[in-house]
């Protein structure tokens, strides 16, 4: 079975502070990990995926297979980063690309 855990429901930081949104996963094979973001009144959209190893809007995430984690980080938070963030996993051994999501973390960046 595959599972994604986001231990924090809410993370509140001040503008300019570093941000780390935690994500831990459980999967027996080689997973593909994603971060999705949902801004207020907008649809869920892909923020980044581990295989592309890119930085989007200043966010990065490194897959740590030893700790089964895929934490999302940003060195200096901006007010426009306030949103719901979901970590998701896709198993490479399953047909199709079914996503298993974590419960989400609401990031609030205070001025």
């Amino acid at each position, binding site marked *: 079975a595959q599972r994604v855990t986001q231990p924090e429901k809410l993370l509140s930081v001040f503008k300019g502070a570093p941000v780390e949104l935690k994500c831990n996963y459980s999967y027996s094979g080689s997973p593909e990990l994603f971060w999705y973001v949902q801004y207020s009144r907008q649809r869920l959209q892909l923020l980044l995926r581990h295989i592309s190893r890119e930085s989007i809007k200043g966010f990065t995430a490194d897959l740590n297979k030893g700790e089964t984690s895929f934490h999302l980080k940003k060195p200096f938070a901006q007010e426009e980063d306030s949103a719901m963030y979901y970590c998701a996993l896709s198993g490479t051994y399953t047909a199709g*690309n079914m996503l298993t999501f974590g419960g989400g973390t609401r990031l609030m960046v205070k001025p």
Partner: protein
Amino acid sequence: DAGVTQSPTHLIKTRGQQVTLRCSPKSGHDTVSWYQQALGQGPQFIFQYYEEEERQRGNFPDRFSGHQFPNYSSELNVNALLLGDSALYLCASSLGGLSGNTIYFGEGSWLTVV
């Protein structure tokens, strides 16, 4: 390109009734997945359709069924509605349903069961 479009955006149903939700995938996409997102939770996978067949299914009862049409649009049907079916239903589309292809989500259909 309007992206993934869903209808209706909001609806209210009574326990025991049946509901049909509709989804048009992003242009060029042939795979449609449906997710249920209860309040305060992450989306949960219901099932995926590819080439008009259900290819993969999550842990949902048979009351949840679907269909994909030749133009790749899809419907989600829920029978014998329960209060616990109240949620945001998300449609997502991709190309080929292969791991590695980006999945795009619609804005969802809010279902309230009273």
